[in-house]
């Protein structure tokens, strides 16, 4: 059309969409401020520690959302990204330096390397074959962590990982570690939000919808899958690094298949393809688990059951429902 695009942008539809975007930004900014303000609102140390763990799981769940929600690759072995990073960061922190940035960088690079190597094989697959192979790879890493005692501490895991340092100063457990985690979550969210809205991010939607069609518009499906797998593992690596510092140690159970199941359930319950939904899922999971495990032994079973029911009756997850309500509050089109 000959008309200038700037003039077209002033249609009522566009301005409504714009106002929704602004409202969304405001909401996100408020949420971020709230998360950062928690330690100053008189929360108990126990609550702070629990919320730290929840936010770490939130970062990890977002990393899985990239695969499941945005690319349509359901991984049954996503504990691998997290667990592997706990060892990489933990061993580095114990033996070389506990500098937070260095440890994170080491974990991220190590995770990227493993993602690249396994990705050469798994990106040939999709659907159930992808799910099973990722599960197998995670089990292999689990076995290695158990058997290679001299390096990983076997079933005991790594014990005595020091506190991280930031610009040469030790980060105190509790509030400071919480703030470090909260800032990491916000940074990861902003970067990933950018990623999924980028041209690259949109190609992932195309791949999820129809791989042949994606190839027919010139998308290198395997390479895109490989790249998103690497980015996903790197993000999981950030979560793993924070976790090893929170727990002052690493444990093979972080690589166990149950953890893969948990994070998958968290991501789906939270709402795939929304990024923020899985974070809410993670917070809910950690807090409910804390309430329930102390009084109820069949927790894992009930969580599984709750998950199945939720998938049946609420397939878009918490995030999906929240988005729908938000859209209704800020309708894009008149009437």
């Amino acid at each position, binding site marked *: *059309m000959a008309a200038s695009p700037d003039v077209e942008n002033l249609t009522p539809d566009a301005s409504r969409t714009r106002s929704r975007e602004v409202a969304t930004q405001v909401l996100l900014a408020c949420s971020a401020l709230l998360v950062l303000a928690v330690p100053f609102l008189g929360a108990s140390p126990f609550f702070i520690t629990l919320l730290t763990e929840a936010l770490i799981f939130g970062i990890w769940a977002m990393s899985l959302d990239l695969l499941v929600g945005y690319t349509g690759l359901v991984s049954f072995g996503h504990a691998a990204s997290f667990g592997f990073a706990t060892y990489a960061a933990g061993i580095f922190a114990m033996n070389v330096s506990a500098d937070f940035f260095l440890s994170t960088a080491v974990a991220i690079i190590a995770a990227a390397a493993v993602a690249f190597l396994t990705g050469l094989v798994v990106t040939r697959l999709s659907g159930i074959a992808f799910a099973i192979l990722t599960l197998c790879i995670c089990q292999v890493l689990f076995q290695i962590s158990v058997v290679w005692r001299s390096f990983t501490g076997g079933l005991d895991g790594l014990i005595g990982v020091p506190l991280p340092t930031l610009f040469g100063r030790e980060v105190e457990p509790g509030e400071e570690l919480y703030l470090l985690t909260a800032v990491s979550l916000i940074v990861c969210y902003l970067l990933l939000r950018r990623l999924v809205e980028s*041209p*690259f991010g949109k*190609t992932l*939607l195309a791949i999820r919808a129809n791989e042949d069609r994606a*190839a027919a*518009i*010139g998308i*290198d499906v395997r390479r895109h899958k490989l790249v998103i797998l690497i980015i996903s593992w790197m993000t999981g690596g950030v979560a793993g690094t924070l976790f090893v510092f929170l727990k002052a140690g690493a444990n093979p159970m972080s690589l166990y298949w149950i953890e893969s199941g948990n994070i998958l359930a968290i991501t789906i319950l939270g709402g795939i393809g929304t990024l923020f939904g899985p974070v809410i899922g993670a917070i809910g999971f950690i807090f409910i688990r804390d309430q329930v495990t102390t009084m109820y032994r069949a927790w894992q079973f009930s969580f599984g059951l709750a998950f199945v029911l939720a998938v049946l009756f609420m397939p878009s997850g918490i995030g999906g429902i929240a988005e729908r309500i938000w859209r209704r509050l800020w309708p894009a089109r008149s009437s």
Partner: protein
Amino acid sequence: MASAFLIEGLHKSFGALHAVNDVSLDIEAGQVHSLIGPNGAGKTTLFNCITGFLQPDAGKVFLKGRDVTDLPSHKLVKEGIVRTFQITQVFGELSARENVELAARSREGLNFDFFRKASACRAASEDAEESLEVVGLIEKAHLRPEELGHGDKRVLEVAIGLALNPEVLLLDEPTAGMSRTETERIARLVRQIADRTSVLLVEHDTEVVLSISDTITVMTQGRVIAQGPPEQISRDPQVQDAYLGAVEVGED
């Protein structure tokens, strides 16, 4: 005229079935080359072999003299060999505009751009806009495929193909399931886009094929049984037997 696209001795078997058997085509730049033949003749299989979705058993594909036989699908698109699908395959969750924009960004080499906002890729949006304009879908660009009629969905396939700025556009039955008027709309469109790209068209409507094609290739059971300009094809007794059958071919 220069030969834009050349297929030489292409073979593809599925077990004992020779789905494509020694097929050669020569498509000149800016021409509409139609491929006709009964169901199961091997037309789609030929498309799949040309566009990297199937590995041919033998034969070569040349684009402007360059051997592109072994390139994967996505690289062929970059080279300018673009296809549409017999069964509509558009991205259901995206609007028509977003479908076409995805293709336009791909053609501009933005598939690995991580930092820009997809919606801020101006040049791609304008290209997409133009494609939608050409196919006459601009008024419905905000609709999602499920909200479009069947005919418009087929047209959207073509718009996606056009946005990739092809050297050769392979259209696999773009009029499948269309009404008479819709078919004529596509026929005009095909003729119109031939001034920017060569077209290899699979089409069942013989009247349409005879009226818009520069060259016609007739296939049955994997083999080419006739090839030539419409006048020659419509008079070919072998073609009449094998394919055109009882169809009235016109007096002149």
